[in-house]
């Protein structure tokens, strides 16, 4: 043990003789090891991100959303008329009745309304939904109950309000049992949901959702009281939209049938919406594939960088060591004269390369550990200087900005092992050629 310490100490002494040269020689290894760790961390992060999204949306769910068709189409055909688009109640019926793999389906209608209680008022999203909504969106109640099937059947004017709504309308009172006004009608509050962190945006069609300003009422009640027409007064101009359903969340009986079912849903909707594509199908399970693809791209790109740096680093080390052997021929001769065996010389030069590559690897590991911070910096840079405004909101942009690298801890010893191996590989030839020198020749070397 003390011998190893001694050998390493002497190797450090030789390397310290040319600090700059040793430092530059290490750079390739530093970058190589850093990219190995960063690559795996970003890959892990992307995969974790996708998994979280999929879990949130439900791995066995298929989500169908209404999408406003492109402007040109709507304006030319329906100028000044009511804009009618999106999923229909008949779509809901066909899907649930013709596709046997669908076990349940939850239709949703969303409108923005002012909510009032006595003198308090706020703008909220009124969501017409069914009893399934609570579970499907991972909501929990802090008070009361959620909507039930009999609320729907009896077209009751009942509402479940989100925590923030409860806090701003009912500062000092218990909201349960109170009447709130939505549009022209009064509804009795039967439950309050707890705060839930907003969900991330998924795909182009599913924007992020802030669940904390919602009011939930039975979808049939919403339909009966408010109708399908949604008139908005925006900046002085009136827009009228006729939408039957904003979203249908379909639950499939098992994971294997998710993708075929999604395909069947697309085909069914294609037939019932032949003219405009005014809906989008979001399959959470497909996000996993997407993330896998991103991970693959990262792996290929950063993997190549890592491989190139490591090879270049290895060649650099070999090059420097060959030069060093020539430069130190006399030293080798002296050591041989003083009793060093060939194997001692090999050991000495190999130790130097291993120490060189090993410390490069160590620095690379430290840089690698800083990947999450570095990535934050890159995100900041991209946000401020590369993707100004619009493109930052794109799908890829959102994925990029939501990504949090996660360091795979097994990659640290692996990356370090690679660097040491490179030290050995690139050091072995110079070391052997040093040891093979004839002591007499070496001593005579100038």
């Amino acid at each position, binding site marked *: 043990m*003390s*011998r190893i310490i*001694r050998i390493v100490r*002497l190797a450090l*002494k*030789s390397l*310290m*003789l040319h600090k700059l040269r040793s430092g530059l020689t290490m750079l390739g290894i530093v970058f190589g090891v850093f990219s190995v760790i960063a690559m795996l961390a970003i890959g892990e992060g992307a995969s974790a991100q996708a998994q979280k999204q999929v879990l949130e949306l439900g791995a066995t769910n298929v989500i169908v959303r209404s999408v406003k068709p492109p402007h040109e189409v709507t304006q030319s055909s329906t100028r000044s008329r009511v804009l009618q688009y999106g999923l229909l109640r008949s779509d809901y019926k066909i899907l649930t009745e013709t596709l046997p793999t669908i076990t349940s389906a939850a239709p949703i209608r969303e409108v923005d309304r002012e909510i009032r209680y006595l003198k308090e008022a706020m703008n909220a999203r009124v969501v017409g939904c069914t009893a399934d909504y609570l579970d499907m969106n991972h909501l929990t109640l802090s008070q009361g109950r959620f909507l039930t099937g009999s609320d729907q059947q009896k077209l009751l004017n009942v509402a479940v309000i989100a925590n923030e709504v409860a806090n701003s309308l009912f500062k000092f009172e218990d909201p349960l049992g109170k009447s709130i006004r939505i549009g022209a009608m009064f509804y009795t509050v039967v439950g309050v949901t707890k705060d839930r962190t907003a969900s991330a945006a998924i795909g182009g069609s599913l924007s992020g959702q802030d669940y904390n300003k919602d009011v939930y009422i039975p979808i049939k009640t919403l339909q009966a009281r408010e109708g399908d027409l949604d008139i908005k007064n925006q900046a002085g101009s009136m827009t009228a939209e006729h939408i039957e359903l904003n979203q249908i969340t379909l639950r499939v009986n098992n994971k294997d049938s998710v993708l075929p079912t999604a395909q069947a849903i697309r085909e069914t909707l294609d037939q019932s919406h032949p003219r405009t594509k005014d809906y989008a199908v979001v399959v959470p399970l497909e996000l996993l594939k997407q993330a896998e693809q991103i991970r693959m791209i990262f792996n290929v790109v950063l993997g190549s960088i890592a491989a190139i740096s490591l090879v270049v680093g290895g060649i650099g080390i070999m090059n420097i060591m060959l030069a060093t052997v020539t430069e130190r021929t*006399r*030293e080798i*001769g*002296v*050591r*041989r*004269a*003083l*009793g*060093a*065996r*060939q*194997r*001692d010389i090999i050991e000495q030069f190999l130790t130097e390369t291993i120490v060189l590559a090993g410390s490069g690897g160590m620095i690379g590991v430290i840089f690698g550990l800083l990947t999450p911070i570095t990535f934050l910096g890159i995100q900041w840079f991209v946000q401020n200087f590369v993707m100004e405004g619009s493109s930052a909101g794109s799908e890829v942009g959102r994925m990029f900005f939501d990504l949090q690298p996660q360091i795979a801890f097994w990659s640290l010893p692996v990356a370090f092992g690679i660097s040491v191996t490179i030290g050995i590989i690139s050091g072995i030839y110079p070391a052997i050629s040093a040891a093979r020198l004839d*002591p*007499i020749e070496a*001593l005579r070397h100038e």
Partner: protein
Amino acid sequence: MKLAAQVVDLTKFYDLGSVVVKALKGVSTDFPEGDFVAIMGSSGSGKSTMLNLLGALDRPTSGQYILGGRDVSTLDDDELSEMRNDMIGFIFQSFNLISQYTVLENIEVPLLYRAGYPAIGRVEREWCMELARMVGLGDRMDHRPFQLSGGQQQRVSIARALVNDPQIILADEPTGNLDSATEAEIMDILHNLNSEGRTIIMVTHEPGIAKQTKRQIVMKDGLIESETILQQAVPAS
């Protein structure tokens, strides 16, 4: 009289393909313990070849070289290394210190390569320091070679040659790179070592240096031309 080393009919030929250079053509001589020998001769006469063989840096083409009771001509490369480490102290014309090491570390180098790699402990370190003090460098043990004068560097190299308590000390023109004042200092140290009983074999060009030894061997064309005994060898008591 006890022999420190002995060569019997030693030859060394270099086969260069077209010609064979006969650097040594059959040299026999004894080196009694406590001897101080100057090997002289014109350039190309075989002095360095002789010293390389005595230093176990090379094997003879034929003949015997007995050192410490073993025939060096039969040893393999590792055994030659052990022999050099254990039996021989080298003093070079150009000092040959290791530039990244301090004085003390340079003196320690032969200890790094001892058979079985025993640890360098307090006893060894104390011994190296004592050697440094003996050659007059007690206050420069942490200096690096470039911080020392030529004479001082040669003192380090002498201390290094002594660290393994060798059977013979080989010096190849040890004062060749030094001015005359420093030359005298180095010769003083070698004299002291010899009077303590150490066997020294030295190659030199200068008759003035050779006169200070106990025996002169003059070589010519790979053979010993003449041998002059100035003084009897006195082994260590």
